[in-house]
């Protein structure tokens, strides 16, 4: 793996490059997209991005966990978790790995 980390800044740079908006506006739009997705998920909705993947919220019931270091039992409260299911397209693009 090449291990480079892509951040919000790289995404807004791509919008600046591809769409020609100012860097400021580009950064704000990246934020808006993430905010809308988060808001929708926080409402318990599914976010389905065709040819990318699906984010869904799942309910987990309470269970007894264990502190792996001390072996002590700790109750784990019921909670909601987010799962991401990549589309076939994304899986296929990633599966082959970097072509170097």
């Amino acid at each position, binding site marked *: *793996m090449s291990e480079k980390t892509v951040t919000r800044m790289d995404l807004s740079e791509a919008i600046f490059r591809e*769409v020609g908006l100012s860097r400021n506006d580009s950064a704000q739009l990246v934020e808006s*997209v993430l905010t809308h*997705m*988060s808001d929708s*998920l*926080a409402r318990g909705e599914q976010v389905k991005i065709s040819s990318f993947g699906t984010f869904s919220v799942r309910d987990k019931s309470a269970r007894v966990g264990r502190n792996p270091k001390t072996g002590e039992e700790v109750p784990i409260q019921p909670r909601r978790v*987010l799962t991401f299911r990549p589309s076939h397209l994304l899986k296929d693009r990633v599966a*082959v790995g970097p072509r170097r």
Partner: protein
Amino acid sequence: MIRSELIQKIAEENPHLFQRDVEKIVNTIFDEITEAMARGDRVELRGFGAFSVKKRDARTGRNPRTGAAVEVEEKNVPFFKTGKLLRDRLNGK
């Protein structure tokens, strides 16, 4: 919410932008994330989550219908870890 609804919301908030530009903006974001993962890079979006690539070793699998053994090659799979802020929001914090 689906991709087109996301585009619609962004368009409504930005009446000064053409619809086709909003489409391009949203598509660019997901394309960049896809390209990054295809390169084996990690995508870290603080507060939202991080996309990374995990390596799965080659293994001997089985055709569940026939029971025949099949060699499955080593491959990379996309992985997403939810950010702390979003995880807390899901749980009403």
